[in-house]
């Protein structure tokens, strides 16, 4: 994973007056699995279609495997694609669909059928070769589309929301399968999704997009643990946001409580949003007024929500009246000790909180 395979530079796409992509630059490495993640309408599909040459960018360049492909038509690029609708040819059987890209390459008939059999085995559909797409389940159709896209051994695999038409269980299963397949074939893959769980579980790196720009590029861990912007923090996972003010270097003020935190890039007196995930907040039963420890502020549990593996508490902070959500699992406290109206001390661990300047 060292060599740059796909290099996108300063790419802009306008639809008339509307700018769908603004000055996007991005590198994808050989063999990497990259997810474009973002809310609906942020330009993910548009970027994917530009990479495929299906809908060419207004400005900017794209290079694949060292060659400039910016203005090439799709047929002269090297990629396989799977659409959300799968776009399987309905009148062709599964094996004919998979063989579609092989046939005109002057390959021998038995060579083709061997390759088709190999691909169908790869996606675990060897026994479905003679069926028509309409006779398959959604998940099976999806795998046929994948096999068809991989048949010509393309250098780049493009997937546009390949799982979104499936129900939750099939989706979870196929995530694993696609990821596994991708790792085995080591094919550079770009997948578009608006499902963060999908992106977090499958991607080597995630490109978080919003309104036609890239908010952050990073591994799932980076994106989740250190969101680069308030948008990313809000979009990925659950996040509490609290109004705060930078006090001095290394400290901010959450109402009357002083909180130790990393304040680099921020100035004293600046209004900020303090972001902390529910699972990072510590609660302990404690009467208010008793001496508070570092990064601790008093509150009261308002309600508790049972969510299976853990309990989510809604806590009202005494000083501001704001509420935060905190997850209780056996990891930080015995959930059974907590009931509504319990007075608690709320701790924000310094290394788990981040500050974002207002308006980012």
């Amino acid at each position, binding site marked *: 994973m060292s060599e740059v395979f796909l290099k996108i530079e300063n790419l802009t796409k306008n639809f008339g007056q509307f700018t769908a992509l603004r000055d996007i630059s991005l590198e994808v490495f050989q063999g990497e699995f990259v997810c474009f993640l973002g809310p609906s309408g942020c330009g993910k599909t548009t970027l994917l279609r530009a990479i495929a040459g299906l809908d060419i960018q207004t400005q900017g*360049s794209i290079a694949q495997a060292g060659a400039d492909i910016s203005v090439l038509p799709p047929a002269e690029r090297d990629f396989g694609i799977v659409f959300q609708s799968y776009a399987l040819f309905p009148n062709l059987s599964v094996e004919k669909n998979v063989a579609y890209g092989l046939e005109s390459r002057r390959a021998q008939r038995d060579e083709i059928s061997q390759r088709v059999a190999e691909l169908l085995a790869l996606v675990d559909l060897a026994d479905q070769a003679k069926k028509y797409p309409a006779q398959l389940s959604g998940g099976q159709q999806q795998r046929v589309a994948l096999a068809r896209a991989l048949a010509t051994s393309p250098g780049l695999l493009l997937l546009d929301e390949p799982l979104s038409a499936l129900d939750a269980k099939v989706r979870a299963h196929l995530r694993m399968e696609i990821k596994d397949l991708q790792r085995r074939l080591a094919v550079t893959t770009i997948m578009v999704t608006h499902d963060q769980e999908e992106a977090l579980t499958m991607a080597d790196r995630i490109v978080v997009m919003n309104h036609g720009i890239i908010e952050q590029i990073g591994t799932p861990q980076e994106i989740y643990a250190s969101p680069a912007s308030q948008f990313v923090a809000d979009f990925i996972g659950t996040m509490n946001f609290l109004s705060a003010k930078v006090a001095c270097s290394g400290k901010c003020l959450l109402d009357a409580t002083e909180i130790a935190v990393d304040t680099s890039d921020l100035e004293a007196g600046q209004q900020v949003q303090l972001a902390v995930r529910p699972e990072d907040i510590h609660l302990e039963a404690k009467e208010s007024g008793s001496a508070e420890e570092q990064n601790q502020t008093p509150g009261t549990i308002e309600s508790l929500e049972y969510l299976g593996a853990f309990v989510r508490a809604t806590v009202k902070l005494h000083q501001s009246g704001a509420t935060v959500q905190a997850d209780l699992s056996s990891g930080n406290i015995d959930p059974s000790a907590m009931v509504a109206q319990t007075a608690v001390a709320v701790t924000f661990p310094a290394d788990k909180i981040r500050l974002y300047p207002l308006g980012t």
Partner: protein
Amino acid sequence: MAGMPHRSGTHGSPLRRKSSSDDRAMRLFILVIAVYLVIALALPLYVMFSKSLENSQGAFVGFQNYLEYFNTPALVYSIQNSLFIGVVTTTITVTIAFILAYALTRSRMPGKSVFKTIAMIPILVPSLLPGIALIYLFGRQGLINELLFGYEIYGPIGIVIAEVFFTLPHALIIIITALSIADARLYEAATALRANRARIFFTVTLPGVRYGLISAAFVVFTLSVTDFGAPKVIGGDFNVLATDIYKQVIGQQNFEMGAVVSMVLLLPAGLAFLVDRIVQKKQVALLSARAVPLEPLPNKRFDTLMLTYSIIISIFILGILGVCQFAALVKFFPYNLSLGFSNYQFDLMDGGGWDSYFNSIEMASYTAVFGTIVVFAGAYLVEKGQGLGPIRGAFQFLAMLPMAIPGLVLGLAYIFFFNAPSNPLNFLYHTMAILVISTITHFYTVSHLTATTALKQMDSQFESVAASLKQPFYRTFLRVTVPVCTPAILDISIYLFVNAMTTVSAVVFLYSPHTTLASVAVLNMDDAGDIAPAAAMGMMIFYTAAGVKILHYLLSRGIEARTQAWRVAVAK
């Protein structure tokens, strides 16, 4: 990687995709078909317009012909007559069609498919035929002419009855479609609010089909104003625009005045067309909403009423047809009522004899085959082609235009264009080819819309996938697009065949002694007073068209059965 050409920044003109060989091939094909439409449609119409500004010596005279036209009361009177026929026919046909469509979609009466099939019969006969039947029924020696209480069938009464017969299926199809897209949830809501049947009808049903009704009204209006068959046969002294064109051209050889009347006739047809396009756009918006189909509830009184009504309409249609068959078989009406086939000895009459019949079949077959290829390929290229935006836009316009051009106008335009000695395409004049070309053009719009609808229903990503697999477009076209669209392709070819069999208006100006046609023979035999043989030839057209329809039905059933395994997906 460092030496890569740099195109960054937001300055400079937008990037353009390099054309692939597919793009170039598709552009070439679309240009070819666009040129076809320009030659077969735009240029003839243009030439006709310029003719209307010339005198018989070919000198430019400005609007003098128009002045002369509007100063000839006999001619101007026809405008009024045409509009009168149009308005009355539209009112009657839309009313009849609406109630029938309502019976077919909103009742639980038995035999719906039979009634619907019967109501479609008029499509299979030339518009001359109902006139002939009316002569037998209500003419001077008609079977039941007492029923007219002394009124004349020759004139507006006859024309309107014949036009109602002729236009009914067209209105019915549109209104049935409008009624079937109704959303059951609206009715459930209205019933829950305890609205009674009448109230629901006026607050839910009628508003729901208003665009369908408007559209049907304009189609019927256009058809009845531009039709030439009915007024020719049963119009008597009641002149309308369509018969005026015919008389000016065929009777008086006054081509310039024919062109002027044609331009006048273009106005109502073009206007109706424009309004219809606007209304259609609104209807599409209604269509795209996700609706729950309505299941009518049984209601004995209502169902009986609707059944009675449907039977009456069916008797009217079958009656007209039956009388024609009777006319064709009776030896010498009304003096010798014994039956026989003497009227089928076409070779003894004017009009081209049996040859016309076989010419018609030949012409209809060519039209079906070549028309389907041209129309479907054209629609495909317009839908899927890349680039050439303005040309594709112009193509769309040209494809919609024939709907607004009455057949007589098109035929006359062809005379002007193809018969000009200076035209290198002059060799086409008086050939089978020009009949085929004019018929394809005349019926282009509906075929084009059928093809476009089918293409739009296909997954738009097929072409993208094929390109990513490096397959040339024609391979995907032949292996996927055509098989998936086979039902629509069959529909188009049958539509073209049947219309080519029955049409009179465009070809009446274009046939030659070697290429006489059955429908024209009906006209000419009727003109010569051989009404019984005309009826016999008309029935030959009916049987042929009906036979082809049945064949189509069987073929579709067969294809359906064979492709059932994969059609499910397309149907959803």
